[in-house]
């Protein structure tokens, strides 16, 4: 499979990259390329211009400050999970980053790129030829969503491994635009719309991830269910963080909806409660309410639904072991 033709830009300053994005609405950013290039080979995405971020300086770092751990968006996943602080204090992030794809994805793929990856669907992530046997789907530029069998909607699924870990940590991200930067909770950059899954302003680039110190003060883990021990996207992924001082819990899931989702109802339920068999009883029901599962992958909904509860329960029982 070959790439379509495109213009290639390699700006050396962020403002220059932002300017290209503003100037060319059909341009796409590329960091490691492990997501974008595959979609381009399938002709599922056909940007006129690729804006490579490779030449941007100073975005490849993991830095501990007084208030937070800051990670540059261009930091390769492998560097993230090999960082001693991440490995020791933020295990959910280390596990999630090291479970992405294969070793090659982890060395090429960046943390920023992983967060901003496209949503996936068994009707969208296919070759042009395969897709040509039915009308173009809404995400690919047509009208109909083959998953929902309705027009004007898209139920492709967000499958990133890293986002749930960072959501559980209450991480924020820095978006840099032509005229400055802003810091927003990570959760806010996901639109919940499968067609345009990211809610990042035109001309803005995600440049940094900020994980508050509080995240390091507690238990965390990431559970991933996948078809194989390597390569695969999650069937379901679940991150759990539990504060060791306040007993607060944060739970986030991936591959269950059009965006990574926080399981807030379950978090509220767990507030002030002991982790025991009784509280675990409620997990299945509460987690199931947090997502809108749709048959967008090869895995059945009933199995996914079951795994959601199981992964969260398993993570919570691990958390209990540490208390």
């Amino acid at each position, binding site marked *: *499979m*070959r790439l379509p*033709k495109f213009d290639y830009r390699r700006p050396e300053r962020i403002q220059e990259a932002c300017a290209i994005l503003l100037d060319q609405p059909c341009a796409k950013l590329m960091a490691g390329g492990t997501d974008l290039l595959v979609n381009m080979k399938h002709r599922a995405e056909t940007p006129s211009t690729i804006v490579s971020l490779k030449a941007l300086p100073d975005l490849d770092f993991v830095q501990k400050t007084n208030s937070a751990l800051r990670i540059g968006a261009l930091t390769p996943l492998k560097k993230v999970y090999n960082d001693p602080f991440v490995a020791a204090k933020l295990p959910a992030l280390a596990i999630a980053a090291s479970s992405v794809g294969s070793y090659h994805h982890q060395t090429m793929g960046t943390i920023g790129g992983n967060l901003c990856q496209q949503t996936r669907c*068994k009707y969208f*992530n*296919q*070759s042009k*030829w*395969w897709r*040509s*046997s039915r009308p173009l789907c809404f995400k690919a530029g047509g009208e109909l969503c083959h998953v929902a069998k309705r027009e004007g909607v898209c139920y492709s699924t967000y499958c990133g491994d890293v986002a749930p870990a960072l959501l559980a940590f209450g991480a924020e991200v820095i978006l840099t635009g032509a005229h400055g930067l802003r810091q927003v909770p990570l959760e806010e950059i996901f639109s919940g719309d499968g067609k345009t899954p990211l809610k990042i302003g035109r001309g803005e680039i995600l440049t940094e991830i900020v994980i508050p110190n509080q995240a390091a003060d507690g238990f965390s883990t990431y559970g991933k*269910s996948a*078809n*194989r*021990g*390597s*390569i*695969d*996207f999650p069937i379901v992924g679940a991150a759990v963080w539990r504060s060791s001082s306040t007993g607060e819990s944060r739970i986030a899931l991936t591959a269950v909806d059009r965006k990574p989702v926080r399981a807030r109802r379950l978090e509220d339920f767990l507030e002030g409660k002991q982790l025991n068999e009784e509280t675990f009883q409620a997990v299945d029901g509460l987690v199931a309410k947090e997502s809108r599962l749709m048959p967008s992958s*090869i*895995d*059945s909904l*009933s*199995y996914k639904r*079951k*795994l959601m509860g*199981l992964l969260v329960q*398993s993570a919570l029982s691990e958390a209990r072991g540490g208390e």
Partner: protein
Amino acid sequence: MGEVRRHKRHSEGALHIGASTPRADAYAKVTGAEKFAADYYSSDMVWAGVKRGAAPHGVIKGIFTDEACKAPGVIAVLTHRDIRGSNRQGVVRKDQPVLADKKVRHCGDAVALVLAEDRETLLRALDLIRLDLEALPGVFDVEEALKDGAPLVHEDNAGGNTLLEAHIQTGDGLTAFERCDEVIEGRFETPWQEHAYLETEVGWAQQQNDGKVVIVASTQTPFRDRAEVAEAIGLDLEQVRVIAPYTGGAFGGKDGITVQTLLALAALHSNGRPVKMWWEREESFIAGTKRHPTRLYYRLGAKGDGVLHALAARLYFDTGPYDHLGGVVMTLALEHAGGAYRIPHALLDAWCVYTNNPIGGAFRAFGVTQVTAAMEQMMDMLAARLDMDPLELRLKNALTRGEKTCVGVTLTGSTGLVECLERVERHPLRTERYAWKAAAGPFKRRGVGIAALMHAAGYGTVVPDYANAKIELTPEGKIRIYCGVVDMGQGNASANAQIAGSILNQNMDSMELVLPDTDRTLPSGSASASRCTYTFGNALIGAAEILKNRILQKAADLLMAPSTDDLTLAPGKVVNRATGAQIPLSRLGRLMAESERTAISHFRAPVAKDRLDVTDELRLHGLGHAVISYGAHLAAVEVDEITGAVEVVSYLSATDCGRALNPQIYEQQIHGGICQGLGFALFEDFRVEQGTVKSPDLATYIIPTAPDTPNMESLPVELHEPTGPFGLKGVGEIATNGPAPAVANALADACGIRMFRLPMTPERVLLALRGRETR
């Protein structure tokens, strides 16, 4: 083209039978120097590609190519109207059009062939071709296809949608069940399996000035390809030359035509320019052949003491719209349907059925994988019913030399099933299984399962299974082996070097290999059927012995020795032990005429001599084999009760392989077969709905990766096979048959659930654990 493979980085010593000599192809492959069919390029090359019907069944009303023809950069657009020959290909029955003419019969049918200057132009041109197809109702289920009124895939087939059916009765057939104390029944379903080789179907072709078309293709069958190509597109046999480099994987998926005919046709319309065709992964998945899906009904009866008494089986094979090798696959499955057991009474019925699904074809172990998955689960179900140990039950019924299989074939060769079972029985994975199972962690269950295997090699009783080996002492003093049997990764090219090297007492650096080429090597059958080293190796022994005598005679003449008695071949030279005089092979090579320093030898494999009461057609399709390998496998699995995931923790195999010429290559073959069998057992779910492939890539069709494979131990049980080269039997396929039943039996041992449908995915396991019907 026509290069000779030479070898570097080998030790100095002469080659030996039984030594783990590094593979002759290893260095060139690892360094990227080896030239595969996919690596052929040239500056004036034309790209060829296929427009496929993309509908499971329909009448072709029109093929509109004008727009594509006019597109800049397009050299030609061809349809069935441009074919002068029969436009039909196939190994046994020629029922597959090169380019569809009246109908399309599955989604991958080729309808038009485009030649373009580059790949981008090619893709655009393929998009510009418009097809007018009148949709026909399709048939997608084997048993539905056999009913009256089912849509016909080939209207002119006398048997309706039946390609081939077979019925074998031995002993008293069904009435024997009346005398059984226990009767077990099971209905099994096995899915398609995709070969998923690294190198998808690919080739390169060019018409020379003299009109001859030269094809370099990734194929297992260069000589058969030559005949098929010539007939299909209307060329004389001498006008086609097929060259077959090492393949980047084949596993049966290249046992027959893939790109060859299309390439030759393209080469006739490219004005003498070379043409390349390379299927993408998706095209390979949709248009390539697969392991036949089957539905298998089994009934097994035994006496109260566990002695098997009667077997009834009905086997349905879905061959898709074309024979390809469907009838032959079904026949080999039929021969193995009762396993390597003493079963005096049997009634076996089998149907190979046309449908509008993807094409069924050869896949490593050729139908035996499917029936073994069923029969070996039946054995465990019977053992459970009788409260017997599954291994004891197998030992009790295992065939030994001189006995007959349930279809009536007498085992005349080495027959080592009992020895294989005994090796497994003594192994710690078996003797310490209770302790290991008891040590399972929370929410985990452990189980150990076994399977007994047999796998026959070669073509069967009618089709001649022969090889012609040619060997040469070159003027440079090297030993050059001309082998017409493809090395698709199994390592037979290395084995050939080892065989000739050991007879001629030469080291690997002296060996040169000429890979299959219809102009340079001699016809020696296909690279398939666990026959490559067995059949060609026997021929090569003959040729190497002739050459050895010629070399020694010439050396005796030149050294003025009274006879060859005192002469010995040593690496690079001949030595007179009596006088110490020497003569280098390079000198001998220069002084010998070509006819003196070249030797050929022919070998034809033995066949089963039993007069079986079956139709001539079934015999033609291969029933009755003489050379059979045996094996016993053990899988130790851990089941996650929460997710249903099955992890194979350890895997043991003992294989009656005859003499292992190269233990390392033996082990590679067994490991490869086990991994492919584990994929079939646990992961690989090729999904097709109404003829449309729903798993067209490696993201939706899950094959195991290295972390998904267990620790494997592969014990050779080296019983001497009297007819084999140095006592060898083939082991290219047998290991593939073990994992599905061994893992299924281990799962039953762990959790008490029986999986009747493959693959055993976590979800299906979980459903079964919850006591739900999995069918």
